[in-house]
């Protein structure tokens, strides 16, 4: 799409951050989010993305495993976005990953959508 452009295209990372109008979509392409170094890098990029757009969709469709450390980073990201009057929502959370987020209590805080399109539609329907 012509209104998209890669924000972090210069650095090869297992995630892709794309701006779609006023929303940033971060698609994580690694199935395991356990490595602390990768968690730190992703966290850094996501915070940078939230600072540069209205809202963020974090797409976890391809993620099968996630660490509690990454869940903690997601909570901090959500809090940082809230302070700026912005939103962070998740998409593609299914199966065991959804169960882990439920066990960790994130389902009570973080909006989750079936896929990126549904998340974008929800953000558009309820602008911040």
């Amino acid at each position, binding site marked *: 799409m012509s209104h998209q452009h890669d924000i972090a295209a210069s650095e090869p990372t297992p995630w892709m951050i794309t701006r779609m109008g006023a929303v940033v979509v971060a698609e994580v392409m690694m199935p395991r989010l356990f490595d602390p170094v990768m968690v730190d890098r992703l966290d850094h990029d996501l915070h940078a993305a939230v600072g540069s757009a209205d809202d963020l969709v974090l797409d976890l469709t391809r993620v099968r*495993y996630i660490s509690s450390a990454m*869940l903690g980073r997601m909570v901090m990201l959500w809090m940082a976005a809230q302070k700026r009057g912005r939103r962070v929502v998740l998409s593609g959370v299914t199966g*065991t990953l959804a*169960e*882990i987020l439920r066990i*960790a*209590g994130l389902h009570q805080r973080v909006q989750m959508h079936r896929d990126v399109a549904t998340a974008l539609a929800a953000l558009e329907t309820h602008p911040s």
Partner: protein
Amino acid sequence: MNASVPPTRGEEPTPNQLAMIEHLEIHADAPPQRGIRHLHLSFPSAFVHGDDAVTLVIERMHSWHWLTSEQTDLLAHALHEAVGNAVVHGNRGHIELTVELELWADGQQWDLHVSDQGKGFSVREALRAFRGRRRNLGNGRGLVIMAGSVERLTFHHGGRTVVLGGRRSDALRRG
């Protein structure tokens, strides 16, 4: 995050999560040895080695039909948390210190022992981490994930060894 949820200072633990932590069993003695030991891995305190060890153990247990697919994924999360805790909080990332991972099982149930060489922890310390600001960095949430992902969770050696336990799915099928 939901439109109906007002902004908060931070994420508060739920009563269920607090109860999980409050009821952690931390014993001073060694864990009981169930049946025979099927696997014993010893590896340096580094994430890459822990990741390999978890993958190997989970794949073996799955190939032996001890786990359903759903149990496999949940146990992988729990075991990663246990090994991560051993590396980061137990051995504090000192690569010269080892983490031991053992799989014990009888005909009905399995136990995974994960041991580090740290100083252990108490329920009070776990609650403090869970309620504090560091929780948003992940502290305490890993314990909740472990407790919610396996049938049995106990700590031994004053917290230096965690035992994750469950029932073999092949035993369930045998009835």
